[in-house]
């Protein structure tokens, strides 16, 4: 599904990613854990194609295609979905308008017919109900005035509507209390399937209790410094990241 080879990337002229190698096959969930400042969010933004994140070396193949040559929206239309650490508030754009525009953009790119207003509302209401997202959130402006938990559930709703193939969860657990975390993580876990893959970026192990990973990678100093099974996450919880930060420095 995703093959990252020797990926180097700069932000504001400073190298943050210093040669990442990572392969995630379809059907698997990989976790990337690491201390603050290790490059976790940079990795997610580079994969999603954010302006200002410059790839200086390496390659990324996504479903057999050169991911880095694609625009942000083309990546999304090909099924790449980044769940934001801090979902952006967009006053003035209603949820229905935003979600319908996005769903139809993705449907067009897949050669499917666009949904009209009624068809879309029906679909959105059903998915919202499944995820425990209140219907009034569809009418409100995107993320505007939402609580931390509401924002993350809204990300899960977008995931459910856009039906991506590859999901990147960028510190989805941040800003959530235990109950909200469980609701969101269980929703995300329900998207697991043999045709999909997931990259869970996190500082803490707790989200991995709900989304159990096939592999865990430790990112420190812009490189993957260790790879293991799900038990590695538990181990890190007790040992911390100090050993890796010293190693990277």
């Amino acid at each position, binding site marked *: 599904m995703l093959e990252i080879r020797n990926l180097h990337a700069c932000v504001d002229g400073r190298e943050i990613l210093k040669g990442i190698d990572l392969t995630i096959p379809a059907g698997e969930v990989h976790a990337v854990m690491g201390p603050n400042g290790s490059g976790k969010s940079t990795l997610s933004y580079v994969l999603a194609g954010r302006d200002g994140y*410059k*790839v200086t070396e390496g390659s990324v193949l996504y479903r057999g295609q050169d991911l880095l040559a694609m*625009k*942000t929206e083309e990546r999304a239309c090909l099924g790449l979905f980044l769940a934001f650490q801090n979902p952006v508030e*967009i006053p003035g754009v209603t949820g229905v308008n935003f979600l319908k525009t*996005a769903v139809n953009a993705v449907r067009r*790119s897949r050669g499917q017919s666009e949904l009209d207003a009624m068809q879309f509302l029906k679909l959105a209401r059903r998915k919202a109900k499944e995820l425990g997202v209140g219907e009034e959130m569809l009418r409100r402006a995107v993320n505007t005035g939402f609580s931390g938990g509401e924002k993350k559930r809204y990300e899960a709703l977008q995931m459910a509507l856009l039906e991506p193939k590859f999901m990147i969860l960028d510190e989805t657990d941040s800003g959530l209390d235990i109950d909200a975390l469980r609701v969101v993580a269980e929703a995300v876990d329900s998207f697991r399937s043999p045709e999909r893959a997931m990259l869970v970026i996190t500082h803490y192990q707790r989200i991995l209790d709900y989304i159990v990973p096939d592999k865990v990678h430790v990112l420190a100093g812009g490189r993957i410094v260790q790879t293991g099974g799900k038990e590695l996450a538990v181990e890190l919880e007790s040992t911390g990241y100090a050993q890796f930060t010293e190693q990277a420095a």
Partner: protein
Amino acid sequence: MIDTTPWLDALHQAARVRSDAAGLPTRRDEAWKYTDIGALGVASFPLAGRPQGSLPTVAPLTTDALQLLLVNGSLQVLPGAELPAGVVIGRLDGKASAELVEAHLGKVIPAEAKSLAALNSGLFDDGVLVRVGAGVTLERPIEIVSVGQAGGDPLAFHPRCLLVIEDGGAATLVERHQGSGRYFSNSVLEIALGAGASLRHYTLQDESPEAVHVATTGIELAAGSRYAGMLVQTGSRLSRHETHAALAGDGASFELDGAYVGAGKQHLDNTTFVTHTAPGGKSRQLFKGVLDDQSHGVFQGTVRVERAAQKTDAHQLSKTLLLSEQAEMDGKPELEIYADDVKCGHGCTVGDIDETALFYLRARGIDAETARQLLIEAFLGDVLEKIAAEPVRTAFAAVVGECLKGAHATRRTNDHHQG
């Protein structure tokens, strides 16, 4: 054409003397620092005569509107419907409701020598009078449409309107400016609100792309009266919309929102003077503009709180989105406060599209152009949403939407991505 009366002659005469002597304001005049009204040669545009040929028809924005049509400043069509008792809609000729006209005409807007309002007072040839009597709520909106029709040669006209709502009365006014060809429209609208009266006022300036548009609106607010205005500017080559509000009675409330879209070489000026002279008044202004290409926007807002106007709550905010590097915005919010127990605030922001929001939308599969469009519409939608009358809101939003699309088409895609 209006039959003259001695006092009206005197008003004309006095104004003519004032504006002849003073001439048009120039950029050396502080209030006109950012807008060069003479730049497009309007001083030499001849006065429009009576409109010739067939009259234009303009579909009213709301089906129940009481429509008045002015062509080149001359009142051509009055509503035929029977009006409720206490309501007068007619020609401003100094004969009907003479006392009322004499009491208010030329009094709501301060008579300053070098003002375009004075020029209008000297030259207006026809006009509209609306009176809503004490305690009367006029349910049907009044719609005043000013159409400019210039053929091969440029022309100038000076529409004049007076709206008086007496104590406890209420009305809705829709004001539209549109046309074709090269003309100079210099309109004046005076509004006098009696105690407890209220007015909703929706203005759409969608003049011909070659037009020079100046409008001066004066609003006098007696105790407990309420004014809620929406001013949308999309048209003209050069425009200046000046609003003078005087909160003269206790606890009056003045709200004015503005939205404008500039493209090409358009120059759009919003200037407001809000004066609180009585205690407990509330004024709020929010202007939002989108400027593309080489367009130029101006917001000048002066809020003056006089010593007697304690417990005043005044706020003004101007926000502009610049879509091109050549677009320009001049903002000058000013507070002059002479009372000590007041709550006042003002602000002015000029910015670019929020890149984080743009990335978020694109990361959901929405292409850069559509995402940008959504964000720009949302920026202005926030203001337009405040129009309470649904058909007016839809119509104004449609005009703004078209302008944004037009502005959009002229711009090259500026789409960066990693490669």
